[in-house]
């Protein structure tokens, strides 16, 4: 009898504790490096009582991780907007966003609308924008001032001192640089195959120029900093952080247009802490918090007024790389249709194998 009583009390206690922990949740955040800096997490935890666990990752890994667990293990993820509708169609790993729980006035309206449109699947909206940026060229102007577009990476003057990734942005960038429009051909498989064939030929021809295909952000920064590589296709933030150490190196928006991406907030299908997730979204989109994230990640956010609190040095670098006409020329990634990546994968494999 006594035993039953104590176990009953234990159960009751567990129930009470469960109820309190429903208010103060643990937010398991799957994000990119720099998007959830320590100081922001501390402020958030102090204000809301929720705790935050950060896992750093990249686009492909986020989708692969969520696919492996059927959309579990995390409460909030931040893939790019072009990786949402396609991944949802294939693997069913996200749940729709409840926009009534989000303060839409915190967002830059045009960016919010664009992301809503791009992340709609079966009439439901799955993502809201957070951080945006571009990929283009990082050039050491003292040694490779002639590099102004992706195709210039294949020029003899920089032979053996060039690096880019063997991933889909490279295919897209080279296609634009060759005067083709891959985004227009996204939904026409035959036309897209034609474009890929031309790009494949070019990349194989260009291969002797390449020192190595880089994999991670730190790797390419090391190569550029040591001078082993003088021109590379990479992200804008990488160029700006190198610019702080060496004024010769900076990010250049290519003539054919930098490629623009927007990283979003999505809810994994089996996430458990939705309240904390919505609280986090509304918290980090406040202008002063967004500025803290920009200072940490180097990229600007979709927060209305979030660019005001940003360090002047970063603003100056941004304006140098992006004169107004270069901003208008940014090519924003549309949603990747399912099946496209299989075609691209085969091309990338063949380029890698070519001699």
């Amino acid at each position: 009898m006594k035993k039953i009583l104590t176990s009953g009390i234990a159960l009751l206690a567990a129930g009470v504790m469960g109820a309190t922990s429903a208010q103060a949740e643990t937010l398991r955040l799957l994000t990119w490096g720099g998007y959830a800096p320590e100081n922001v997490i501390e402020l958030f935890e102090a204000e809301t009582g929720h705790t935050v666990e950060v896992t750093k990752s990249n686009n492909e890994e986020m989708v692969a991780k969520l696919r492996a667990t059927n959309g579990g293990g995390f409460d909030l993820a931040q893939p790019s907007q072009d990786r949402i509708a396609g991944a949802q169609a294939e693997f069913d790993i996200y749940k729709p966003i409840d926009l009534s729980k989000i303060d839409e006035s915190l967002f830059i309206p045009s960016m919010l609308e664009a992301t809503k449109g791009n992340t709609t699947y079966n009439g439901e909206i799955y993502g809201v924008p957070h951080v945006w940026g571009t990929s283009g060229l990082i050039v050491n102007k003292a040694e490779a001032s002639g590099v102004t577009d992706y195709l210039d990476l294949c020029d003899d003057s920089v032979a053996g001192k060039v690096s880019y990734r063997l991933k889909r942005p490279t295919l897209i960038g080279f296609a634009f640089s060759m005067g083709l429009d891959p985004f227009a051909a996204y939904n026409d498989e035959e036309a897209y195959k034609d474009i890929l064939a031309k790009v494949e030929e070019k990349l194989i021809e260009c291969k002797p120029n390449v020192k190595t295909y880089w994999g991670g952000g730190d790797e390419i920064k090391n190569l550029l900093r040591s001078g082993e590589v003088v021109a590379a296709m990479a992200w804008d933030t990488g160029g700006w952080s190198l610019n702080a150490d060496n004024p010769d190196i900076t990010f250049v928006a290519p003539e054919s247009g930098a490629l623009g991406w927007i990283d979003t907030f999505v809810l994994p299908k089996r996430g458990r802490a939705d309240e904390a997730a919505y609280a986090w979204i509304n918290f980090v989109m406040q202008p002063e918090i967004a500025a803290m994230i920009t200072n940490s990640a180097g990229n600007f956010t979709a927060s209305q007024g979030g660019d005001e609190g940003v360090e002047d040095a970063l603003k100056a670098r941004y304006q140098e790389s992006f004169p107004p006409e270069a901003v208008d020329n940014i090519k924003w990634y549309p949603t990747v249709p399912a099946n496209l990546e299989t075609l691209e994968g085969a091309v990338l494999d063949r380029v890698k194998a070519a001699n």
Partner: protein
Amino acid sequence: MNSVHSRLSLYLLFTPFLLWLALLIIIPHIFMFLVSISVKTGVREYVTGLGNYMVFFTEPLYWNTFARTAFMSVSATFLTLLIGFPVAYYIAKLTRGRTKTTLFLMCLIPFWVSELVRTFGWMILLRETGIFSSFLQYIGLASEPIEFLYNDAAIMVGLVYTSMLFMVVPLVTTLDSLDDSLIEAGYDLGGNGITVLREIIIPHAMPGIVSGCIVVFMLSLGNYLTPILLGGKDSLWFTGLIYDQFITRFNWELGSAFGFLLLLLSSTIVWAGLKLSGQSLTNTVGR
């Protein structure tokens, strides 16, 4: 009563092993096999078939990569044996007591840090602005920086270095068990260094050689970090292909099929190696 007890304790002792075998090896492999035989036909649509395996045989790229991986792993194994044998012989036969322990420990020390750190160490040595290149320029042998990284030789260096210990340990053990008087007898009977090596030392060390070779070959074939980091743009390695299929292409079906083919083909190569050397698994690894 007693026999029931001893049987129970036998089962209990056996349980961790059985759990390990079932949960970590058999069940994942069954699932992976099921994934590998489902062929994607459309969005969220799959049929059962061998299409993924056919891709491997019809696309020469995958075949070539596998052949290249196997060839380079065999070469790395052979090189490791060539370098490891004298080292092991020296440790086992020519040193005693403290020196022996110290030398053995020195083989072990690099393995106290992770493989990633060891590979980065090689990158620091070999890169264009690295230590070797700078040293060659300093002593005047080279006029400009030399790139040692990002080629097959760099991969080979990394593989041999990574697996050296796994060759030296079994060799030292088998060579230790060789009675010195047998070697002396060989010389007394008029043999020279080469005949003694061929007729006495190598036959005795054969189980150690084969078990070392099997372990090193498997480690090289399944290595991911070293070829990717040191090989650069030409680093085609089969495990890298599998990683790409799983993580960057979201194509688990093809990745699983590749995984099974790797298991199958590597087992075949090990089996062929055992047959060629006239050894058996029980005689080498099982000792």
